């Protein structure tokens, strides 16, 4: 119990006594804001008309908050706030460095686009089931995972986003959705359990959960701790979350069942949280172990990207095809993590690119499916003749996901391939290039069959896509085009982010100022 003022206890031994300036609040506000607005939307869930307005407004505020946070991190370096004023490592720290802030900003952009797209895609029953509250709680989980500086807290945010994603997945309660949701839920629970076991093991070894503290202790006590076992457990758990081969089968089995905007958000956000955690844990906390495991990760990466691309060629349902492309992209990011060094920047860049482009691709597939009345490539056709603007948007996305210049998919693939060649892993660079080629065939097939081929069946819905669908799609396409044409501003931040991950001394200083521990 806090005694009234006047006690003689030295509080500075336990508490942060320096006042917290308002700017420091930026590190926690994205999460708190999502929780507050999610709760308000849940209370208002009977007001079906006001929900989208409020949710889009809340997501726009989230984008602004994440933008301010990124600006603050670029200006002043990593930013830390310890919950409840306790000194780290005892209090739960929220620490935003460049990597976390970049991921948070891009996830907020994608969520905003999804919120707008959902105005048309989610009908009254979906809203009554609570699409928008779930979306904001999902964003609380995603932002929390990107911004936390405590590894058990990372687990908690994984659970938050997982539970929200269950809700989104079964929106509407169709039998097919339940089937997809069961596979998704079971395999993801296995992955989170593995993660929890790894965290428990880590706590047993280090006696701390604060990431900065772990980074220091891992460097000091590497010789006498079984860190390889621990790192392997983390790779398996996060690899499963990220849908890496051979634990990728849950993703294509479930991503085609929910509403299209839900698939779009999942494809953009969820697997990237797994990749982010791999970056955080393997690159920042256990760099030596990552080096040891790099061959294993590289083999998994090559298999993931090639099998993903081959799987995409083999599908005739557009949504399933995109599910395999998500998996294939994860392979490229893993390759970057396996290579290390400049490859890490490539992995971060590819993750940001993939967030935007995979979300946009799913949205485009939703519009295409609505226009032609089917998601099956064998029945679709004539989209180009019907709406040229939408077809142009889709073509940009197809080229971008295949890694063609001048779009955003090109640069990260070049970075990863070059980093792989530099360390002599020709086969890895070769599989990145081969994946690009196979992806091109897969999306070229969609383009030829659904867009170019004259329509064989009467049109599904006569009207073109509404502004609520075209607007977010255009905005995301604009992002991929701009990043592709002018990569320098983003690239320089990403390279700074990667070097901060490789040498986390600034991160550690932000958690433990003046070297106090």
């Amino acid at each position, binding site marked *: *119990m806090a005694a009234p003022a006047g006690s003689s206890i030295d509080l500075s031994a336990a508490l942060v006594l320096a006042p917290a300036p308002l700017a420091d609040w930026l590190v926690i506000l994205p999460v708190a804001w999502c*929780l*507050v607005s999610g709760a308000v939307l849940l209370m208002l*869930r009977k007001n079906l008309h006001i929900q989208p307005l409020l949710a889009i407004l809340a997501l726009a505020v989230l984008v602004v908050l994440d933008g301010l946070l990124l600006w603050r991190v670029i200006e002043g370096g990593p930013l830390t706030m310890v919950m*409840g004023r306790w000194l780290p490592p005892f209090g739960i720290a*929220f620490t935003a460095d460049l990597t976390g802030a970049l991921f948070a900003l891009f996830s907020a952009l994608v969520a905003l686009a999804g919120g707008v797209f959902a105005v048309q895609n989610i009908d009254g029953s979906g809203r009554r089931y609570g699409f928008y509250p779930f979306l904001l709680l999902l964003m609380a989980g995603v932002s929390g995972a990107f911004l936390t500086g405590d590894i058990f807290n990372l687990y908690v945010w994984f659970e938050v986003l997982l539970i929200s994603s269950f809700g989104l997945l079964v929106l509407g309660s169709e039998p097919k959705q339940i089937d997809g949701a069961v596979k998704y839920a079971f395999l993801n629970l296995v992955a989170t359990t593995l993660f929890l076991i790894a965290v428990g093991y880590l706590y047993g070894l280090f006696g701390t959960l604060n990431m900065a503290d772990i980074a220091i202790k891992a460097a000091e006590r590497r010789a006498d701790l079984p860190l390889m076992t621990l790192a392997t457990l983390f790779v398996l758990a996060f690899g499963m979350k990220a849908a890496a081969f051979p634990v990728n089968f849950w993703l294509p089995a479930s991503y085609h069942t929910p509403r299209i905007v839900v698939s779009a958000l999942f494809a953009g956000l969820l697997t990237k949280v797994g990749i982010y955690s791999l970056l955080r844990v393997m690159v920042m906390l256990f760099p030596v172990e990552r080096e040891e495991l790099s061959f294993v990760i590289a083999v998994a990466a090559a298999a993931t990207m090639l099998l993903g691309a081959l799987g995409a060629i083999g599908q005739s349902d557009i949504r399933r095809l995109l599910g395999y492309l998500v998996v294939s992209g994860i392979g490229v990011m893993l390759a970057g993590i396996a290579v290390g060094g400049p490859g890490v920047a490539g992995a971060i860049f590819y993750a940001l690119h993939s967030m935007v482009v995979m979300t946009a691709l799913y949205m485009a597939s939703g519009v295409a499916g609505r226009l032609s009345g089917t998601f099956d490539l064998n029945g679709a056709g004539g989209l180009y003749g019907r709406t040229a603007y939408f077809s142009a948007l889709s073509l940009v996305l197809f080229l971008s996901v295949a890694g063609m210049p001048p779009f955003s998919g090109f640069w990260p693939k070049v970075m990863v391939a070059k980093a792989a060649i530099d360390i002599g892993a020709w086969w890895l660079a070769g599989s990145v290039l081969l994946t690009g080629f196979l992806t091109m065939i897969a999306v070229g097939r969609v383009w030829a069959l659904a867009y170019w081929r004259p329509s064989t069946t009467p049109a599904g819905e006569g009207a073109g896509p509404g502004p609520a669908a075209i607007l977010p799609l255009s905005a995301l396409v604009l992002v991929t085009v701009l990043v592709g044409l002018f990569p320098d501003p983003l690239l320089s931040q990403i390279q700074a982010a990667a070097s901060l991950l490789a040498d986390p001394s600034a991160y550690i200083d932000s958690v433990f100022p003046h070297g106090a521990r």
Partner: protein
Amino acid sequence: MNTVIFRTLAPFLTALMLLFSVFVLLRGHNEPGGGFIGGLIAASALAIYGIGRGIQPVRQALWFHPMTIAAFGLLLACVAGLVSMVAAVPFMTGLWIYPSLFGVEVPLSTVMLFDLGVYLVVVGAITSIALALEREDI
């Protein structure tokens, strides 16, 4: 379960348990108890009422939809953390005031507000699950 004895006793049992849940909630700051366990006790009280009298009376007695109660609890818990912003201390720092009511000093804190939020979240969530289960049961 649909006996006269149970139907007659259920409201009294519910009232007693709800009162006890508030006691456990408030005691929780320094002794065993707290928002979570208090919320569970309250939710089981409502479940007993539901088993005795049916779902509709529970919904009427609650006035608000259970999910709304849970959402309000989440809001309270978040606001309890955000109050620290005004005091220029980090998120979730416990802040205390000691107003004097009728000559008795009453310690109030954001920690208690947070616990109240947890209580409402648990009551709302568990009650809506219980009501859904009871509805399928019949």
